[in-house]
């Protein structure tokens, strides 16, 4: 006990000494505030204008970051009659390395700002800061001069990196909760528990659509979107492709998959091949069933258009991420009278699919589709987990709106993503 106190005392004394020493080093003898002015010779600054330096300079390590940054705050300056603040300049000196009293300019902030973050610090160094207000003085009606006033030197500060971003703790809790529900229900489903999934209109029609192509002796086109494998919608699209390919293989109907990305080409080929083997018809698979057109959005659309008009498929599937080409594709397909089943999570393209296709999977239904078609426990389970997440959101909406409407508690702050 005794020893601890003495250490504390020593440290205290040491830091006071250090502080005084630093003060001697950095405070210029004249005063706390210096006036440096760029006054043209002959014009004097009227005595009536008392310029005040920025006060209450607070410096601290920018929280929740990877280091290398210090945040500087100061108090807003009082408004003066003939002097307008133009901007603030931020000055910095390193305690260890620089020549005493030498401050370097690190950046500037606009005249109403009271905070600046200096992102060019070194985590191993200690710094002090000064804030310089740049004033525009109106001497008389014609003369305006610029002058600056510096604040006193700030406390010492050094930047550091943090191991956890506490501003994001709510996101962390949310992700963990949602992941838990999804994994829990996947586990449940895999251990044999029956999970109910409501009917999804578009998917009931898949068999019928493939069947029609078989009857008519025509092709089926499957378009897995125009985005790359890095898009989760494309992944959902190729998953559904697997099921469609199985059905097509069973019916012995020609399925053609023109794609616009090389990675999709690679994946789709594997998936279709696998589907054909799965139903015992590996010999029926042909390499050129899945082929690449071009990476370009409209080059691709133009290519498909031509193919659709010339080859007149009986059924066309559009499952994945689409942009503007959705309309060209769906409208051309519609014009040759093909049955069209579409699904995308691109809100801006949904209206066209809704209008021009026979069935459309809206948004989340696309992701549900692979679960619905395959009836695989892992997919059904995660769908159920998503629903629990949705239920929590709905409850939050209800409870939160009531609490906020009657000003009981600001519930929405629970969902705040960044500190402002």
């Amino acid at each position, binding site marked *: 006990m005794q020893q601890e106190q003495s250490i504390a005392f020593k440290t205290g004394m040491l830091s006071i000494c250090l502080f005084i020493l630093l003060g001697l080093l950095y405070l210029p003898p004249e005063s706390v505030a210096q006036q440096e002015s760029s006054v043209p010779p002959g014009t004097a600054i009227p005595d009536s204008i008392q310029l005040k330096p920025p006060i209450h300079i607070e410096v601290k390590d920018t929280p929740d*970051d990877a280091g290398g940054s210090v945040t500087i705050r100061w108090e807003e300056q009082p408004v003066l009659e003939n002097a307008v603040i133009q901007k603030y300049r931020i000055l910095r000196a390193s305690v260890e390395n620089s020549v005493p009293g030498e401050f370097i300019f690190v950046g500037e902030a*606009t005249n*109403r700002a009271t905070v600046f*973050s200096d*992102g060019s610090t070194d985590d191993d160094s200690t710094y002090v800061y000064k804030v310089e207000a740049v004033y525009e003085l109106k001497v008389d009606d014609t003369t305006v001069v610029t002058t600056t006033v510096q604040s006193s030197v700030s406390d010492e500060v050094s930047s550091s990196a943090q191991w956890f971003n506490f501003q994001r703790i709510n996101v962390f809790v949310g992700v963990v909760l949602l992941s838990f529900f999804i994994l829990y229900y996947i586990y449940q489903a895999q251990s044999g528990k029956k999970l109910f999934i409501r009917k999804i209109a578009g998917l009931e029609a898949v068999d019928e659509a493939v069947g029609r192509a078989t009857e008519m002796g025509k092709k089926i086109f499957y378009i897995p979107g125009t985005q790359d494998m890095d898009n989760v919608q494309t992944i959902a699209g190729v998953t559904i492709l697997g099921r469609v390919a199985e059905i097509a293989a069973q019916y012995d109907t020609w399925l053609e998959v023109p794609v616009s990305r090389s990675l999709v080409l690679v994946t789709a080929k594997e998936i279709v091949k696998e589907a054909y083997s799965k139903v015992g018809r590996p010999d029926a698979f042909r390499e050129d069933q899945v082929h690449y057109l071009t990476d370009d959005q*409209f080059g691709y659309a133009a290519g498909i258009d031509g193919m659709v008009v010339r080859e007149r498929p009986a059924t066309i599937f559009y499952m994945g991420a689409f942009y503007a080409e959705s309309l060209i594709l769906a409208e051309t397909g519609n*014009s040759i009278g093909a049955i069209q089943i579409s699904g995308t999570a691109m*809100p801006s393209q949904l209206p066209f699919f809704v209008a021009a296709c026979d069935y459309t999977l809206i948004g989340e239904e696309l992701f549900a589709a692979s679960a619905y078609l395959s009836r695989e426990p892992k997919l059904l389970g995660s769908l159920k987990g998503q629903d629990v997440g949705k239920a929590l959101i709905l409850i939050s909406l209800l409870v939160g709106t009531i609490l906020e409407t009657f000003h009981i508690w600001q519930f929405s702050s629970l969902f705040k993503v*960044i500190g*402002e």
Partner: protein
Amino acid sequence: MSSTTRIRELAVVILILVISVIVYIGKIQGWNNGLMFSPAVSLTVVIVIFLLLLYILLRTLQGHLIGRRTVFLFVGLAVVLPFFMTLTLKFRVSPEVQQLYDALSELQPGSKVLVSFDYDPPSAPELQPMAVAFLRYCLSHDLKVIIIGLWPQGPQQANLALEDALKSKEVAAKKPEYGVDYVNLGFQVGNEFVIQRMGTDFKSMFPKDYSGTVYDDLPLVRNVKNFSNIDYSFNLSAGYPGTQEWVQVAVDRYGLKMGAGNTAVQAPMMYTYLNAGQLVGLLGGMNGAAEFELVTNEIGKGTKFMLSQSFAHMIVIAFIIIGNVAYFKSGRKKKL
């Protein structure tokens, strides 16, 4: 196909080409100075189109349906003819455009505005007028503009827009200087990863500007480390990567204050971000551009094209009505 149709089609193509050549020669020789209808002719054209639509409606009521090509023809007419008309239309500024303008006018002179050009020439008709109007406003109000692009063609579009903006009298009076008042940092690959890394360090993503000047040699950006040194940002977006990625990364992770100009296709989705405060201000499509031109008092291409835009909308609505008339007439069964 019969050979007579083929000959007829070929004749039409040749005719179009011949007329084009004549008009083009006229343009070079100087006797073709453009076409302009007088108000009386404009009005007549409008009435004739209206009567034709009425005739189509009547035919539809009698059970004769029109084909795709007729629809195409009318859309073409509705877009082309207004170019030659001398009519002016008044319109009003919508709240989200006003919000963008307010956010801009609150900025102090010297504020740094980051503008990301995430589009290519095909979307330029919608976004270029916005870009020009926005840059013009910034440069004439002492806002410092930092341009980047996440699409390879973005910075080129930015240069075109700058060229136009610098022509304006207000801007020219300010004599903006490259490197001090505005910079074009060029394109960088990596989509949203670029945004994410700009969150910690601009310079690592844009070591040089568009013309090869080193980052630290540009006074405007020398002390711009990351988003915390940016006062407002504006994203011109035609797809991916675009406003959604900027909101997800720059706004929600780094607290950037941002407004957006979007193609009208994307705009509806952005209203959710607008409503949640993730976006401050939104220009949607050409009419967003026109409204921004109105609120900043500078007529540009957005306003100029509004007449064609109005006509095109009317035609689409007319055909929806005709289509529905046909549908109800046929006892709601017939699939066209």
